[in-house]
């Protein structure tokens, strides 16, 4: 199958395929499958083919090429690109074409990757099902009646549907790992600061992180190697060298590695039996690979979701103030309300019309939690709990090298199932938000199928900057299992 990054790189290197052929194949796949799944919001066919031709020309001339030369990659539509719109799947930014490239885009261009287009997402990355997009929902390639997960659902579905071998997503509370789990692919949320956020349209600045999505740990490692690294234009960027992730994974020996399992997490209400089974089976695979399983506690895990749903909306309410109709975003033509006057009226109508209901809900929650009199009760308290959560992880990583558990409580649910129940929707992030609050890296890897043939992912977490360890363990798992090679049939 020519659907993995490494296979494509091999085919290009050996001359079995040209970058133009690979790119055309990708564009054809989008044309065929996207009317059904709605994973892609913008296709940059011309620019992609031009890049591919350039790569072919330079390869023929024996000129040096970047690490991802000729590999089609799709980009979540909240990462700034100069030659494609960046809409955050919001009516607010429908026509926005940034005048600058995000750092990750610049790095991908430098690596001669073929940027094929932008992917659908929950509006401003707020959601767990990809249903809040102004472009309409994305559908899961494994079953079109199911959601792909969110908010990087388009980035997960575009890979799962065979449109591209890899994509970039962003993960604020699980937005890469959860859709990766639902779509049967591998998705990595790097350490906070490992990948520059410059050019990532902010949802919750202290939690957001860009990460790669592809079929295998090997492919994810190749992408991370390209996009990671220090960026002086991002104050939160970490100034430490980038390891050669793709080399770190070339071994399947986990002897001496301790994998911690959160028993309480496996007893949790709402955890689907099939997910529990996949985690248990994954534990056995790791034991067979030589790892030792130990029990660990994360005593404050019950506060992860409430803490997250205070901090993220607070930051979001502030980050989204710039979409006021005067500077950025949709401007309303509605008549002036005499009581408000022209300016306030314009602000109100523009935001009213431009934002969807989930975004409005979170802006309201955040505005409330930051307001005088509530700041200490909510935001300040959440910051304190966040510190405790980090402490839990520090303690757990004294006992274990990695933590293993579910990525999402269930496999992909049906479209519309939780749309009217925000609390149920928020609980989809139950297992993933801890890593964002602590700033540590985490990966979701395919680990089974449920009775209806939908993929199930398990999650590995590691201490800060230990992406190599995560990718190494994930690759070892994938050397012993076939789940990452399963492809959706005819849904």
């Amino acid at each position, binding site marked *: 199958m020519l659907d993995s990054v490494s296979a494509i790189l091999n085919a290009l290197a050996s001359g079995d395929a040209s970058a133009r052929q690979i790119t055309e194949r990708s564009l054809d796949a989008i044309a065929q499958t996207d009317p059904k799944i709605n994973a892609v919001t913008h296709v940059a066919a011309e620019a992609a083919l031009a890049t591919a031709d350039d790569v072919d020309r330079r390869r023929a001339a024996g000129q040096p090429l970047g690490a991802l030369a000729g590999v089609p990659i799709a980009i979540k539509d909240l990462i*700034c690109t100069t030659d494609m719109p960046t809409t955050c799947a919001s009516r607010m930014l429908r026509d926005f074409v*940034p005048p600058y490239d995000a750092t990750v885009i610049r790095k991908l261009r430098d690596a001669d990757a073929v940027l094929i287009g932008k992917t659908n997402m929950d509006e401003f990355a707020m959601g767990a099902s990809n249903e809040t997009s102004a472009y309409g929902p994305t559908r899961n390639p494994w079953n079109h009646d199911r959601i792909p997960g969110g908010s990087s659902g388009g980035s997960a579905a575009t890979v799962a549907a065979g449109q591209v071998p890899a994509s970039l997503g962003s993960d604020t509370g699980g937005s890469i790992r959860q859709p990766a789990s639902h779509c049967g692919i591998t998705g990595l949320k790097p350490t906070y600061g490992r990948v520059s956020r410059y*050019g990532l349209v902010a949802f919750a600045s202290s939690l957001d992180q860009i990460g790669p999505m592809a079929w295998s740990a090997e492919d994810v490692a190749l992408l991370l190697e390209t996009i990671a690294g220090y960026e002086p234009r991002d*104050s*939160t960027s970490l100034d430490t060298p980038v390891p050669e992730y793709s080399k770190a994974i070339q071994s399947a020996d986990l002897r001496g590695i301790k994998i911690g399992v959160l028993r309480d997490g496996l007893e949790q209400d709402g955890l689907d039996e099939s997910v529990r089974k996949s985690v248990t089976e994954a534990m056995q695979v790791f034991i067979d690979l030589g790892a030792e399983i130990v029990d660990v506690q994360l005593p404050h895990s019950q506060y992860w979701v409430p803490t997250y749903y205070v901090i993220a909306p607070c930051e979001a309410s502030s980050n989204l103030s710039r979409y006021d109709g005067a*500077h950025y975003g949709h401007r309303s033509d509605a008549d002036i309300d005499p009581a408000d006057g*022209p300016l306030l009226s314009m602000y109100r109508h523009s935001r009213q019309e431009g934002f969807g209901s989930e975004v409005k809900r979170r802006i309201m929650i955040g505005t409330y939690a930051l307001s005088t009199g509530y700041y200490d009760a909510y935001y300040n308290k959440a910051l304190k709990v966040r510190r405790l959560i980090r402490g839990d992880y520090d303690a757990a990583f004294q006992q274990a090298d990695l933590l293993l558990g579910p990525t999402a409580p269930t496999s992909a649910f049906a479209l519309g199932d939780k749309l009217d129940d925000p609390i149920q929707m928020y609980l989809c992030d139950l297992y993933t938000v801890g890593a964002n609050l602590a700033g540590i890296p985490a990966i979701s890897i395919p680990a089974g199928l449920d009775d209806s043939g939908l993929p199930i992912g398990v999650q590995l977490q590691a201490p800060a900057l230990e992406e190599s360890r995560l990718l190494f363990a994930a690759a070892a798992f994938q050397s012993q299992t076939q789940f990452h090679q399963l492809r959706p049939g005819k849904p």
Partner: protein
Amino acid sequence: MPQYETIIGLEVHVQLKTDSKLFCGCSTQFGAPPNSQVCPVCLGMPGALPVMNRQAITLAVKAGLALNCNIPPMTKWDRKQYFYPDLPKGYQISQYDLPICADGFLDIDDPASEGDTRRIGLIRAHLEEDAGKSQHDEASGRQDSRIDLNRCGTPLLEIVSQPDMRSSAEAKNYLTELKLLLTHLEVSDCEMQEGSLRVDANINLHLDVDGKKIATPIVEVKNMNSFRAVERALDYEAERQYAHWEETGQTIKDAPKTTRGWDDSREQTFAQREKEESADYRYFPDPDLLPVRLPRSFIDQVRDTIQETPAQARDRLQTQHGLSAYDADVIVNQGAAMLGYFETVADVSGDPKRASSWIQQDVLRTLKEQETSIEEFPIPAKRLGELLGRVRSGDLDNNRARDVFAYLIDNDSDVDSACTALGIEAVDSGEIESLCQKLLDDNPQVVQDVRGGKQQAVGRLIGQAKKVNPNANPQQVRETLLKLING
């Protein structure tokens, strides 16, 4: 009529003299075409991120140290949220609960008692980014407004005083001394016309009514564009508040703080439209910027760059150069450039007092006439020093020196060439002696008078000597005449 005391606190925004904006590399130069000095960061474009300007931190710490403030080991950035057309992000990056400088003071001249000082407490000084500028084009009957975002992200230091001032004259002295200090340290240019120094004043009255203290509601006066305006606005506002109290009896307990503007042409303050609800800025730490650690070593390094404050300079001019307190004041208050100019003139001439008086009279008068600054003054300090050195040694008299001074202002020439051009030559003592002998021979009466004890009689001959030879030094002529008469 009850006695009252005026209570004044000032909030001064100064633009820091950095090469670039607070969180990006854009220029902060004044007067550029609208929206020509902007980038994704200062425009708050989606996805852009701020990065702290180290120079701004350094300048803020320098100002804080000179203002006797505490510099905490850690400071952080907060977001202040409000919607306004010239605020692109919908929030301003500022400092809320951990300002970079806290608890300082500034000593100022007491306007009520010459020679005494008043100590004005400072609550804090914090860094923040400036917003843009809106221009409302209502005059032409059009509805549109224009927004210039060049100022967005310009680094400001907001210096907040305690309500320690008791009169508009104190407020003016405070502002003058603050401006002098900040320009002296090259922390800010403090150009009010360019908006690099802006003042808001909080004012109310404490009345003594039948032995009971009553405070009037606090008013914040904004939009004053000169120190003179601040003075007049505060005087106006004190009277207005008193009249208002007489009329309504309203005290601080009855009315919240209000905001008023200053109309310079009509010389009165006016009520600004009240906000319907009191502002809730929803401050919270900016997650895009890490807290700033200020190690002791860094603060010490900055302290080492503070050569001297204006107050220290005044002391030094008195002790080291022997100037009077008044003279030291005049020179230091002209600013750092003038102080430097004076010191060179004093050193080169070897005569600080003469340097001081020439600068106060001749130099300042010329600057005023030519409407220029000491930086643009045509006579370099070294050259003026040389000229005054010749006066000191007696080679030139004051009148001839003034001729040379005038010549040097109009011509870029050294002192020697100026003297040559003006026909001023050194006259050797033999020549003076024969000239004097001839004058005495022609005026025996003078000789008699002097011998009779009337020394001042030689005065008549000095004038005549200058007529014969304009280069003759009057002092030298006098001495020679007396020597010849007395043998």
